[in-house]
């Protein structure tokens, strides 16, 4: 595909900045989406990609700078505005109507009509069937969306975007939950859209996919665009270097810890339809990383270990005792702690105060003479606040007033107060600014140094490679590799995470 830098971009971002309080999510970012181009948007989590996508889709507006459509500055007040300008977005998590049929999901808001304004069902079905055929998917337009896999739901989203006749398609990690065959199918569609003159913004962490499909690339780091150019001129290692922008080993000073006895021993853990036959061990003082792509089943595994999800098979043994499956309270009592991925939904009660959140996991300890003692709560919370260098106004402030990094510290305080033997931490630094990130890493390292067993789920390779004593890689619900710190490198982890190597022995 030839790229003509002189043509007017269909949609562009010109010097856009967006800050949330003191956090600069986007700094003077520019990006042009031209007809016939597939542009890759690369960057680590927290580099500002999602803010950029939100601005392009009208979910958010920049503090300064502008969005251009056909060269003219516009303001997208809503997603409807951006859609009318021909911008469609395929999100990681599809937003569909579960009770309605696939066909109705595609045409909702624009039902085809026949006489007396009735819905033209045959036309609706035919249209959607046509779109699905084009995608090469065998999906019944009449079946309800409820019960569809994420991959199939994404197909419905893509069909919807196609039905809008979108000129610009933004795909935010669309392949994360797709199998190899589905990815090939998707790329076929992307190429067809490209040939027809659409612009595609493609966000993915799978490097080989990016090189397969994209023509140009924008690299972001810490809210800034650090590279913009044809992908062919940027070799893979150079791309990674620009994304990370610093030496991995320098960033994660690993304090060697004495590795002790087995704390967590998981055998044959399965959850029907989600993950299968997971074996893993974590020892005292050891940091074990669970690596893999989004949707590989890592969060589901740790949630089943902790008991908030019900595993269908297998055993979870903590310090020599088998835990009942599906009972978080028992897991906590056995010394387990889980810092979940979704802080706002799972980690914290946003309407409650900092102090109340920090003590939520051990309310029993906050009693004096049987009743909750506000004094003790304050003392405990402020003690942990100090130890974790939490920055806050008052302990009675709602936890929602804190920045992402400080919120994460509150979740950590909540669990460290229970004096756990095993800390499970899912995406420890997601949505956290760079400064606090390093702090969180330091805290985890220190804890491991004190003999805490740590099981960490992370999608960020530098974090995995820099922090972990051992790396387990998952692909489509199964553990596909187990690497020691010495064995683990980017290539091996990525290969295992994309299913290129199915046998552990190959590496070990």
């Amino acid at each position, binding site marked *: 595909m030839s790229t003509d830098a002189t043509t007017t971009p269909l949609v562009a971002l010109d010097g856009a900045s967006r800050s949330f309080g003191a956090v600069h999510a986007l700094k003077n970012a520019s990006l042009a989406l031209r007809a016939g181009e597939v542009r890759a948007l690369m960057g680590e989590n927290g580099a500002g990609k999602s803010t950029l996508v939100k601005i392009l889709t009208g979910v958010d507006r920049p503090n300064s700078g502008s969005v251009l459509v056909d060269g003219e500055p516009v303001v997208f007040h809503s997603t409807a505005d951006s859609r009318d300008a021909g911008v469609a977005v395929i999100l990681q998590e599809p937003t569909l109507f579960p009770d309605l049929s696939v066909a109705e999901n595609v045409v909702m808001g624009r039902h085809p009509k026949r006489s007396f*304004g009735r819905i033209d069902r045959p036309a609706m079905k035919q249209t959607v069937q046509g779109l699905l055929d084009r995608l090469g998917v*065998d999906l019944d337009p009449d079946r309800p969306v409820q*019960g569809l896999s994420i991959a199939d739901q994404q197909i419905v989203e893509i069909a919807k975007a196609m039905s809008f006749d979108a000129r610009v398609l933004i795909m935010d990690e669309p392949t994360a939950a797709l199998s190899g065959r589905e990815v090939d199918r998707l790329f076929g569609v992307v*190429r067809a859209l490209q040939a027809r003159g659409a612009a595609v913004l493609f966000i993915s962490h799978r490097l080989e996919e990016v090189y397969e499909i994209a023509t140009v690339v924008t690299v972001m780091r810490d809210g800034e665009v650090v590279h913009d150019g044809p992908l062919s001129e940027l070799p893979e290692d150079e791309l990674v270097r620009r994304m990370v922008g610093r030496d991995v080993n320098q960033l994660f000073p690993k304090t060697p810890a004495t590795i002790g006895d087995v704390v967590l021993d998981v055998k044959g853990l399965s959850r029907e339809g989600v993950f299968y036959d997971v074996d893993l061990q974590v020892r005292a003082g050891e940091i074990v990383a669970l690596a893999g792509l989004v949707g590989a089943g890592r969060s589901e595994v740790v949630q089943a270990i902790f008991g908030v999800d019900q595993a269908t098979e297998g055993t979870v043994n903590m310090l020599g005792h088998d835990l009942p499956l599906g009972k978080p309270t028992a897991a906590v009592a056995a010394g387990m702690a889980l810092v979940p991925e979704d802080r706002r939904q799972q980690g914290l009660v946003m309407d409650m105060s900092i102090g109340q959140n920090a003590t939520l996991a051990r309310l029993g300890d906050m009693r004096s003479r049987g009743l909750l003692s506000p004094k003790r709560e304050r003392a405990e919370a402020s003690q942990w606040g100090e130890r974790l260098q939490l920055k806050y106004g008052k302990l009675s402030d709602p936890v929602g007033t804190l920045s992402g990094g400080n919120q994460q510290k509150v979740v950590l305080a909540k669990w460290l107060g229970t004096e756990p033997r095993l800390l499970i931490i899912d995406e420890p630094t997601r949505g956290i600014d760079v400064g606090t990130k390093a702090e969180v890493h330091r805290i985890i390292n220190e804890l491991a140094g004190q003999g805490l067993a740590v099981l960490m789920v992370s999608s960020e390779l530098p974090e995995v490679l820099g922090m972990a004593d051992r790396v387990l890689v998952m692909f489509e619900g199964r553990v596909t590799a187990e690497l020691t710190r010495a064995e683990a490198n980017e290539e091996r982890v990525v290969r295992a995470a994309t299913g290129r190597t199915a046998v552990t022995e190959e590496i070990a």
Partner: protein
Amino acid sequence: MSTPVTTPAAPGPGGSAPSGPTVEPEEAERVSAGRRVVDRLIRARELGLIVVLIAIVAITGAIEPNFLDADSLKQTVLNVAIIAVMTAGMTLVIVTRNIDLSVGSILGLSAFLCGDFLTKNPSVPWIVGVLIAILIGAACGLLNGVLVTWGRVPALVVTLGTMYALRGVAFLVTGGRQINAEDLPDSFLKVGSGDLLGVPTLIVLAVVVIVLFWFITRDYAWGRQLYAIGSSGRSGGQAAKLAGLKSDRRVTQAFVISGALAGLGGAMYAARYGTVDATGGQGYELRVIGAAVVGGVAIAGGSGTVFGAALGAVVLGTIQTALIVLKIDDFWQQAIVGLLIIVAISLDRLITNQSEALLRQRSARRRTAA
């Protein structure tokens, strides 16, 4: 937004888009099996209700053949007509993930005002009275809708409040008076007891209303949007927003219709019973919601049909009459209704769990096979 989807506007099968049938016969078979399962689940509720209905009628008829008299059956259906009409409106509201507890009070208020108007203006055609009842109901529904959408007050709170307030207004306007059958014009009372083409007028009216709204919720974009709003409401309403649906307007309209049909129910009540005071329709709200729930309308929004809800009303009404005919203590009636509601929602949940597990397994198998 307003442009309907017409013929496929997406890229042609050019480029390297995968072409040709990639579907293996085995997979096709699996898919059609899935289709059958889904179809069966959708129809299960209506079919189940019809089976239950036939069973009740058959058993009652076998024990007490009088029950099968045309006159007895007519009475049964007449008893159901008012509830069924209100259930249609309630279905629209519940489908959007809201609820309307005020329908009983709206019925009481509009029944009295309708009767009062016709008593004082005996020369005016009775249809004017009916229209007044509908208008009063619609106005009450508008109040509910605006408070829910513009005021952002949960429907449960709003309609609990208007249930009280409107009942209070009914007490206020009646001022302790009562309208009696002899005060009402005969033409109006005939609507309540008379026939239209051999079928009781109230039943004709109920059937028309039910068919009309069943049709609207099935075959019109407006109706489908109600389902979409309720369905997406479970996950924060994002999908409805992205599809550009005017959720607030639709929800308000659903409340207006629920109110209007409760108003119509008021007119039917006045015509059928002739005696109206401020307490008319007290407790109807729960009978109506109960009928909708038994009929398969999910309280969480997004699913259930007007037809199913009407069937729910018929089943509950038939049980009521059957118990009387069988001379079973009237007292059992309410307990059975309650039990039926619980059995209905529990069955729904079990079937959903089962089918979800089935679909999950199936898609997992497909994924690993791919």
